[in-house]
């Protein structure tokens, strides 16, 4: 009896769920992805609250103490100027996360639009758009970022823009390649021949199919953006002292890794965990958003 009653309820529920809800439900089942998501959320909350909860001031020095290993007073040790490393990492996460997310958002927006339009419209438009990408690709961006920071002085805004401007190109190419590949496949050709409107083809067929690679690439872009920032720190062009980013902490930690290993280990560890979390979350999203994958 009870089963008979349940069946209509279930089918109603299925109908009422949107695609997104569906995806979310699938995501929730993925334990690693959720773990990554919780970690990232916690990290963001801590980063936002840092000015109120940090144990020390990020620039407060204790010259007599110097570099000291982790202790009860300084859980993650202190750097060469005797500054508390936990505090420095907490403040650094504000910069690094901001650089990572904002620059990636910039890159994502430009890249996906550009690549999707080029790939879908095709023909002359595609050729022109991709030549522009080629031209920009041909610029050695490392040097350009160096020159930009030299000309305009290094500022956070410049970092966002410069890094975002570098990263969108690959995104555009990947999206275009994917769009081209999918366009050639039977189901899309069928849709075209059936006279479906371009908007409908894009929204119903292309976007869902392109989403997977884009998400995977985004999870790769955030780390590479964070790393690019650290490379600039390595060249001395990153964030200005006494502020710190994970990149600048790692860049100075690697120079002293044999003497004060904790100055490399902890910033490196937090960076790695963050990037792993982003990765698991990305994979989880990919599986959740790809309807075909979920049927397996």
């Amino acid at each position: 009896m009870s089963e008979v009653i349940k069946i209509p309820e279930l089918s109603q529920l299925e109908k009422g769920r949107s695609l997104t809800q569906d995806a979310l439900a699938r995501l929730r089942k993925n334990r690693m992805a959720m773990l990554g998501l919780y970690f990232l959320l916690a990290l963001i909350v801590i980063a936002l609250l840092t000015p109120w909860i940090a144990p020390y001031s990020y620039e407060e020095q204790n010259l007599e103490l110097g570099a000291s290993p982790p202790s009860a007073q300084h859980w993650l040790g202190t750097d060469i100027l005797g500054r508390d490393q936990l505090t420095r990492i907490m403040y650094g996460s504000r910069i690094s996360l901001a650089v990572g997310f904002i620059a990636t958002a910039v890159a994502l927006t430009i890249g996906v639009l550009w690549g999707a339009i080029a790939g879908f419209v095709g023909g002359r438009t595609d050729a022109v758009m991709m030549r522009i990408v080629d031209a920009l690709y041909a610029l050695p961006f490392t040097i350009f970022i160096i020159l930009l920071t030299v000309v305009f002085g290094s500022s956070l805004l410049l970092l966002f823009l410069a890094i975002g401007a570098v990263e969108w190109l690959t995104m555009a190419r990947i999206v275009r390649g994917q769009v081209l590949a999918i366009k050639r496949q039977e189901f899309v050709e069928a849709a075209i021949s059936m006279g479906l409107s371009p908007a409908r083809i894009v929204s119903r067929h292309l976007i869902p199919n392109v989403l997977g690679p884009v998400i995977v690439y985004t999870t790769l872009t955030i780390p590479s953006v964070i790393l690019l920032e650290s490379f600039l720190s390595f060249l001395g062009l990153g964030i200005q002292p006494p502020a710190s980013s994970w990149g600048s902490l790692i860049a100075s930690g690697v120079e002293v890794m044999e003497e004060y290993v904790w100055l490399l280990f902890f910033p490196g560890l937090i960076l790695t965990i963050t990037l792993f979390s982003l990765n698991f979350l990305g994979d989880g999203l990919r599986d959740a958003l790809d309807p075909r994958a979920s049927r397996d």
Partner: protein
Amino acid sequence: MHAIRWLMICVMAAGLLSGCGKSQKLVDIGNEQQILHIANGDEISDLDPQVTTGMPESRVQAALFEGLVARDPKTLKVVPGVAERWDISEDGTKYRFYIRENAKWSNGDDLTANDFVQSWRRSFLPALGNQYATSLYVVKNGQAFHEGKIGFEDVGVKAFDKKILDVELIAPTPYFLQLLAHHSAFALHIPTIEKFGAIDERGTKWTRPENFVGNGPFIPVEWIPTKYIAVKRNPYYWDAANVKLNEIRFYPIPKYTVEERMFRAGQLHITYYLPRDKLEYYKAKNDGVLRSFQNFATYFYRFNTTIKPLNDLRVRKALAYSVNRHQIVEYVTKFGQKPAYALTAPDPNSYVPEAKMPYDPDLARKLLAEAGFPEGKGFPTLTIAFNTNDEHRNVAMAIQQMWKKELGIEVSLENVEWKVFLDRERQMDYEIDRASWVGDYLDPFTFLEMFTTGNGNNKTGFASTEYDSLIRASALEADPEQRMFYFQKADKILVDEVPILPLYTYHWNRLVSKSVKNWYDNPMDYYSFKQIYLE
């Protein structure tokens, strides 16, 4: 299954690698064949002694050329070079040099007095753009010729005969002989230079190893940019019988961590410097490879005295008196540096500045209040600019904290890329900036001349007629004691007027393999490669 196969491949690869055994040590091979492997800091830009200005170039040039005089690397005393002896007139303005009969160029040509005359003439030619041309202004009419006012026949350098050179100076310059050991006063083989371009043309191919002609104990044989420059023994060198090394390889290694690793792995005999954090390790190890010595060089901050509030002497004093130099060298730079309280780097054998900038935070606070900023209230946020470098950054951060703690003022820090830094400094577009000075020769003049009015290296807006006249008087004074008296007074003026904030005297640490013999450290970091040998 796959995992196991992978594991096997890894194990095999590791086995292969370890099968290669210990890697071959360049140092051991070098010891057998008398080949010295030495790190040389930045890439050398050229070998022309009248064009280059850097330390890395001057080290290579020390192997490829020999001046009229040389310096004893142990004591820095002037010793005969190409000239076996010289006479000085009583008033100290006329020099006669007797060039060795057997002195030759590396192509076998005889080295004559006229070679020096023609080389010095070249060094004054405007189109060459020799940055050390001014250092030979002490030669009579040198300046007038350089400025194109007179012909070269009136300049005070003449070949008396084939092997005798006469030089006339404008004043009894006591450091003149030291100047002659500097690369800008070396003799060049003019016919070779003219073969590859005009005599005053920069950057022709005459300095390439295949074309090069010099008169030093070594000649270049291979120059691969960013890899190394290799020099071999010069058979025509007059003292070739006493040169023991067969070859020297100078490696351009800008990163100190890289050269330290190379030294540990047996790929270098001598490093250029040492990463700061490695000092403790080598001190503790105490195996005789660490060389530690003071330099004739000062690290200081410039104040822009032309802008508010730094045009107020009380403000400058307040800033200067609240800096604890002892703490900086002890806990920040940690490399053996000595606090500096005056500009001129001390040389225990001749001159130690007596004037001392005090460390007195109470007085500093009082002065700042008098200047209108009690407890730092209302003090504008000044910026300390420094070129990109960890050490400069750490020092600046420490000073920032000291001023905050002692005076209650905030300063911001700005990390500036090197060329931008120089550009701003030249245009006086800075407030406080980081500076250093390395003495060209062992005399206080090389430091103090800098702050005369309008000197290109002054860059602080500081101008004092009393100071200028002291420096001028010291240049014309033959009596050593009287000169030192002038220098003491000049140093005192800088301490009182505070256009600069001296912080510390440089200290050098480097690693020298125990197989290197006859290698001496000195405050000028001057080398003579001819006596060095490997064991």
